[in-house]
Every structure is written in structure tokens, then in C-alpha cells.
């Protein structure tokens, strides 16, 4: 070993200083992928395909890996889901494809579908191959508002159908939450960006840093384009509604994660104690990353018990594995401190007649120097209504037709978190695909050419259309 020069203390920390933030699940080696892919039974009408919202032909892409065709495998994946590269890393596979593997009902571990998918798309991205081409010019143009998962998916299919696409994005980079809001150890920014590049390379015209209603009016977009896809996601984080909430040291979950994703470690001091309010999947991303940043004590506080926490069980396991502490059945009543956060006061709650009520005289304080609010994002209700005049449901979500994703405005379609209130990347990708097909049909009045048969069949997850034709013989 050569001599190691100790780093001066003043030097800013880099991602290399935080091994826990680096990719947690290891990539599969070629040999491992070959062995794991050979375990797949290649089920017909496979439950994993049904469980995937984008209905990727999983047995097929696994067979393709097994027969040394990783590029073909990646194409099978990305045909059904342009976000397949990030979904391979961030999908709750335990709850979706892998959780439905037929091996689950037998004596075997399920196929590691997520890691195999990642193996295939990594090969494609490693070789820097663009396997798709834009479709023949359909003579129509669509606007996609928001370059997050649903918008990107919609843009990908519209371009492949030959529709001109302009994407409006408020942030300086595409990818939405994939780029800005997912735990660093699951998906890094460059991985998200290389995925967006494969989509935008199909000739989408992207306007970054453009906010609807400020830099450009929604009505103007609707007027100028043949169709508009709204994939604006959710709005700001929910407020705690307690005194002291605005003290320095109180963060919202997504901006907190965004700084980690930006590797802006000077803006996120390690601190001594971090308290996270909320117990969803984003809250887990917060507490695990706080721990992995080196915070000695990290507490997750939730108003109900672990049996009711919204996070997936394996996410909870992840937090437990990172030695996060838990406070159940508590609600914050006050953020303590004068110039900055010094602690938080909780009250215990109990359930009475379905409602949570504070337990009298149960208040207690937890000293801390950082509080992160992860109690969900607000739907963009009022903003959206004012901007677009679209019909919204009482929770502020855009109302759409379930089959076509058309909104109350006949030129506007919507998908992703803006219509479902916050689900997975893979749900947004499925929405974008569904909307692209209905937009194409609406603006051109035509059916797509047969070359698009495979990905269109994955919208509803049915088998190939051709088979029915032969069976009718």
C-alpha cells in the first residue's frame, strides 16, 4: 500500500465518504445472471407479468438473458416500460413481480427479477445503444408537462408513434423523483439521467426550468398543441401544523433527499439526532440515509403502530437493519428551540372509535438537531384547478377515465402521481404508456401500425392479438 495522505478536515465530503449511500444491492455478474435466469420456469401467462403494472414479458426477457442476448432482453423490457432501468432498482419487487413468482408457493426462492432486469438494462446502457427509433411523422404535436416517470413514458411512446413532443419541466434536469427523490443507495442520479436520455434522444424537445402558470400559461399550451399530457406529480410536503415548524433544522423529506442526491453534503450536516415524522416508504428513505450519513441517533415517529405503517415490510426491515429507533403511537405537538431546532415534543395517542386522541398528560420531549417531515405530499389541488380548470376529486387528484386517462378537457390527458395521489414509478410508467396510445388515436384518428403490437398488448397485459385470430379458425 502506498502512503495515504490524510484528508484535511476542511475538504468537503464526497459520496466516497459514505459507503452506505452507494448502491446497496450488488449488480449481477454475467455468470450469476446465467445461473439465476436458468432457474426461471418460463411460466405461461406468468403471474409476474400480471403483477407488473407495465406487464413486461418477464419470462421472455429472462430467457433472453439465459440465451446470451442481453440487448434483446433489454429491448423486451424497455418496449413495455421505458423506465425499466430505474424500475429494476426502485420497484417494490417483493410486492409485485417477485412476490407473485410461482416459486413463492413452492419450496424455492423467487427468481430475482429486479436484479436480472437491471443486468439486462445495464448491458444496454453500458454499450450506449439506442435500440428504438422515432415513428414516421404523424403530423401532430403533443405537449408533455413534467419530465418525471409518467411524462417520460408518455413522451417515449408518442415519439415512437411519430407524434412531435415538447416536454415542459420545472427542474433543470429530467427524471422527476427518479433523479431527485429516490434513496441514493437504490438509484443514483447518473443512472436516472442515462435512462431519461434514451427517451429524450428519440427527438423530444425539452424545455427545462419552465413552470406552468409562471413562465408559460396552461391555456397557451392547450391552444398550441394537439394534445397535452399532464404528469406533474404531487405538490409540496404536508405541514405538521405545530408551533416551531419553521425553525432552521426542520426539513421536508424530498428537499432533504434531493440534497443527498446532489451530493451536497455541506448542506446536510451529520448532526447528532434526527427525528423523522411519518412511516411511509419516503420516511424510510429519510431515516436510512440519515443513518448512512453518519447521524448517531435517528428516530422514526408515527401516530400508529408498526402494523399500520404505510411502508413496505422490507423497507421497515431496512430501517431496523440500520439501527433506526422507533416511536409508535405519538404525534408531534411542538418543535422546540429558539434560533434552531433543539428538540421535539410528542404526545402519546390512542385510538377511540376509529379516531386518534391524545392521551392526557402524556407529553414528552426528544432532544434533536434535525427534524424531517415525511407525512406525504399534498396533491396540487388548488394550483392545478386554478391553472387548468380540470375536474379534480376531493383529494385534489385529477379525475381521468380509467381506460384512456382522458381528463375533463378533451385535449388533456393525465397520469402518474397527479392522478393516483402517489404510487410507484412503475405505475407512472404504465400511465404514460396508456395515455400515449389514447392520445395517438385521438389526435390522428388512426390505429397504430402493427409494429407497435407488442408494447400495445402490454397495456392491458393480454397475450398477442394474433393468437385469437388463429383460434377463430
Amino acid at each position, binding site marked *: 500500500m502506498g502512503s495515504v495522505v490524510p484528508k484535511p478536515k476542511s475538504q468537503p465530503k464526497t459520496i466516497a465518504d459514505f459507503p452506505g449511500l452507494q448502491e446497496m444491492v450488488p449488480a449481477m455478474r454475467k455468470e450469476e445472471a446465467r445461473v439465476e435466469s436458468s432457474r426461471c420456469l418460463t411460466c405461461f401467462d406468468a403471474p409476474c407479468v400480471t403483477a407488473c403494472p407495465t406487464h413486461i414479458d418477464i419470462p421472455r426477457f429472462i430467457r433472453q438473458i439465459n440465451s446470451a442476448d442481453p440487448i434483446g432482453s433489454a429491448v423486451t423490457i424497455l418496449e413495455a416500460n421505458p423506465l425499466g432501468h430505474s424500475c429494476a432498482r426502485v420497484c417494490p419487487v417483493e410486492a409485485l413481480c417477485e412476490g407473485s413468482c410461482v416459486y413463492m408457493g413452492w419450496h424455492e426462492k423467487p427468481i430475482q427479477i429486479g436484479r436480472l432486469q437491471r443486468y439486462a438494462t445495464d448491458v444496454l446502457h453500458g454499450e450506449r445503444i439506442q435500440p428504438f427509433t422515432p415513428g414516421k411523422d404523424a403530423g401532430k404535436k403533443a405537449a408533455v408537462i413534467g419530465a418525471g416517470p409518467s411524462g417520460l413514458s408518455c413522451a417515449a411512446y408518442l415519439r415512437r408513434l411519430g407524434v412531435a413532443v415538447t416536454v415542459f419541466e420545472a427542474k433543470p434536469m429530467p427524471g422527476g423523483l427518479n433523479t431527485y427523490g429516490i434513496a441514493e443507495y437504490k438509484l443514483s442520479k447518473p443512472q436516472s439521467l442515462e435512462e431519461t436520455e434514451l427517451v429524450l434522444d428519440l427527438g423530444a*424537445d425539452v424545455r427545462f426550468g419552465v413552470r406552468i402558470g409562471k413562465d408559460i400559461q396552461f391555456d397557451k399550451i392547450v391552444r398550441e398543441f394537439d394534445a397535452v399530457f399532464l404528469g406533474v406529480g404531487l405538490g409540496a410536503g404536508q405541514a405538521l401544523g405545530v408551533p416551531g415548524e419553521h425553525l432552521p433544522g426542520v426539513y421536508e423529506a424530498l428537499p432533504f433527499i434531493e440534497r443527498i442526491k446532489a451530493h451536497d453534503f455541506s448542506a446536510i450536516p451529520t448532526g447528532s439526532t434526527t427525528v423523522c415524522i411519518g412511516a411511509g416508504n419516503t420516511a424510510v428513505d429519510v431515516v436510512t440515509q440519515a443513518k448512512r450519513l453518519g447521524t448517531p441517533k435517528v428516530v422514526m415517529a408515527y401516530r400508529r403502530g408498526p402494523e399500520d405503517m404505510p411502508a413496505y415490510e422490507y423497507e421497515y426491515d431496512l430501517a431496523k437493519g440500520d439501527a433506526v429507533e422507533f416511536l409508535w403511537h405519538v404525534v408531534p405537538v411542538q418543535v422546540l428551540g429558539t434560533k434552531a431546532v433543539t428538540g421535539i415534543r410528542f404526545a402519546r395517542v390512542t385510538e377511540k372509535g376509529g379516531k386518534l386522541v391524545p392521551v392526557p398528560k402524556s407529553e414528552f420531549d426528544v432532544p434533536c438537531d434535525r427534524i424531517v417531515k415525511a407525512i406525504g405530499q399534498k396533491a396540487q389541488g388548488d394550483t392545478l384547478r386554478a391553472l387548468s380548470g380540470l375536474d379534480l376529486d376531493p383529494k385534489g387528484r385529477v379525475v381521468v377515465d380509467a381506460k384512456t386517462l382522458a381528463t375533463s378537457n378533451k385535449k388533456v390527458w393525465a397520469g402518474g402521481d397527479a392522478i393516483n395521489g402517489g404510487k410507484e414509478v412503475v405505475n407512472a410508467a404504465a400511465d404514460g404508456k396508456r395515455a400515449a396510445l389514447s392520445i395517438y388515436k385521438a389526435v390522428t384518428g388512426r390505429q397504430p401500425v402493427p409494429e407497435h403490437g407488442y408494447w400495445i398488448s402490454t397495456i392491458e397485459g393480454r397475450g398477442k392479438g394474433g393468437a385469437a385470430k*388463429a383460434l377463430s379458425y
Partner: protein
Amino acid sequence: MAPRKHSPIKHGRKPLKPIAPEPDLTANCGGIKSPNPFWLASAPPTNSGPQIMRAFDYGWGGAVWKTLGEDPAVINVTSRYGAIDLGGQKIAGFNNVELITDRPLADNLKEMYEVKKRYPKHAVIASLMVPCERKNWHDIVKRTEDTGCDGLELNFGCPHGMSERGMGSAVGQVPEYIKMVSEFVKEVARTPVLVKLTPNITDIRYGARAAKAGGADGVSLINTINSVMGVDLDTMVPKFAIDGYGAHGGYCGPAVKPIALNMVSQIATDPETRGLPISGIGGVSDWRDAVEFMLLGSSNVQVCTAVMHYGFRIVEDMRSGLINWMRSQNFTKLDDFVGKTAPRIVEWKKLNLHHKTIAKIDASKCIECDLCHVACQDTAHQCIVRPMDMGGKGRLPTVIEEDCVGCNLCSLVCPVESCITMEAVPTGHAPFTWEQYTKNGFKGYKEVYKRYHEPQKTGKKS
């Protein structure tokens, strides 16, 4: 709004390159054209029109109809298939005692006509088998060709049941019969004729030569191999049994591929049959198998067992794999590689005795299972040793290079990919074959490996 290139995304990767255009997969076997080289072999998957049309919808380029015969149609037994599983791999080998079609000839012909009408671009080939009389063959050829089918395949290969009745492999085992029946067929056939050969012979070249002499436009091989799948050790009846009795069946599936590849290459390189179109059959399960058959001289391939295992859908991956492999090799059409490897299969006497390879074990990859050591020690050339057997410590095997004969065994038993590699060692000697050696009065061979050596002594006690 003028189109504008999106702002560069800063992720430090190289620029994207578009994928190469799709190569032309159009195949031509003896004048039978198909949109791709993947055909279904004459077998249960091609038993009916609806099956074949469904297969075409999935992307199969052609289908050889389940063999047609004369009415009354045959009767099949129930319990027809058996399989060999190898470890976790189901159906490494497959066998059957099913006969030719058990449906009336008129039904099959009507459906064949319909399929051809609906799928004009796909290849529909009628497999035929009738008694060895001119009139019988003339009749069925004429009736079949009236359906509009693209070609005929004469089934001289079926090794069970039909052979007892003087058809199938009973014809394929006698070159004179092959030639005679081929001539009967060619007297009236308007479409190309392939002769399907049986591997249950001593030398496949005689059958191929006879087919060529009889005027056949090509050969297809291999049909199935005589086989008995096993015995149930509890009941001591054959696997599988029909009311307690078994009969030999036809063996196929992944396990038979090397036998088929050999026979294909023999026909492709035989001076008498070189250039005779070949439709390759035998254990084709994915695109790599297909490419191997084609490199050794097949114009296309036929598939059965893999389809019976997984369904028609596998053709999608076969197409994709072939296309991406052709892209990687810069091939634009099948003829760019069909037969490319055939000249590299030569007689043993023409192999270079001065070529030398030795095994290299990558210690960083070795997991110390020591299978290479025991294989070499007990069954090969005693050149892989371990410190623990030499009075030292540790299990890590190493190769005594001067004792290694480059046999490959260690690299074959090693479970870790590219841990043991066989590396060429330049000997500095000009190529020298057995043929030259014998012509030269058994002189001129340079000892490139140690031929006579004491077995390596191992074990602490010795």
C-alpha cells in the same frame, strides 16, 4: 415552436449510438423460401391448421405438417412421451412413440389449403409417408400439392411403429430405397422435395448421397434416435409404459444436438453431397443452437422439443437473439454465415499435432472445490496438484504445466466461469498432422507435451 435539441444531460457517459438495422432473415432451403429460418418440425406441434396458424402469429417462418399418410389413419397409443431430467433441468432429452397423423387425410389437406391461403408468405411443407409403391407416392404427392403447400418432406426417419410396417426409418436405413422413393416423388412433384433422414444408421452420408441421386432438392436431419427412456425401479416396468409394456421410441431434445451437428457437418463436407441444401434438426432450443446448425451448413432449422416444453412463443427470443448476433458480426443476410464453419470440421488425421494448449487456473476466481484436481488426478494426466497433498497447507489447485496435455477436462468440470482457461502455447513448430507423420515413416513429430511420464505422486503417506 421550432424543434430544439434537449439540453445535454450531464451524466458522464459516452454518446448514444443507434442500433444497427435489422438483418434480412429470409431463408431458402432447396427452393423453399420462408421469412426466417425457424420452422416447426413435423411433430405434434404441427398436428393441425389452428396450431400452425397460431405458431405463424408468434413468428415461426415455416412449419412441416405432421406426417400425412393414407387412410385409414393410424391409431395411437395413450402414454406417448417420456423425458430425461438432468439435475434441475427438465427435458434434457425427450422421447416419443407417437405415430404419424391420426386424422383423416382429407381433414389435413383442407386445413393445409386454408393455412396457405391465410399465410401465403410462410412456408408450409407437407411431410409424407406411404408404402414404397410408385402409385401410392404419386397419389399423395398430387393430392398434397393441390393444397398450395410450398414443399414436401419425405419422412424416411420415424424409427418406431411405422418402421415395423416398412416405412419411415425402414426406408431411411436402405440407401437404395431412399433413392427409389425420391425418384417416385420427383416424377410428379412440382414443389421442392426434402428427404428427412434417420440417424439410426452407420454413416449418414450414404443416405444423403442416395437422396441426392434420387433427385431430392435437399435433406433434413436428424429424425429421432432409437431409445428406451428407463425403468421404474419400484414397479420394474419401462418408463414410460402402455399397460405395463414399453416400446423403443424416438429420442430428441437438447441432448441429441451434438449427434445432429456431426451428421449435418458430414453431409455439408462430403464431396458427393457438398452444396446439397440441409434443413437442420435436433435439439434446437434457442438461437445459439440454430446458428450452430447454420454455421455447419444448414440453410434453416426445425424445432420441436423446445416448443413442446415452452410453447410457440420461444420463436420471439430466437428471432431476437439471431438478429442481435448477426448485428454484432456485421452480417446482413443468412448466406453471410451459412456453412462458414463446415470446412473447419476435418478428419482427425488432418489435425495439427504440433498445436499445444495448457490449463491455467485463475487463483483469484478459484473457489477451491478441487473438482479439477480429482478429475485430473484420477482420470486424466495427474498434473493438477494441491499444497495439502504435497506436505503443505491449502486446497488451491495449481497446474504442473510441463505435465499438462491440454485435454480440457479440468476446464469442463470447473463450475466457475472462466476460472480455468485453456491457453495456446506457441511451440515454434510448423503444423504437422498424423497424415504427414505416417507418410514420413513415423518421424518428424516434436514432443509438444510429455507423453511418457510418471503419474504425479500425491498424498502424504506415499
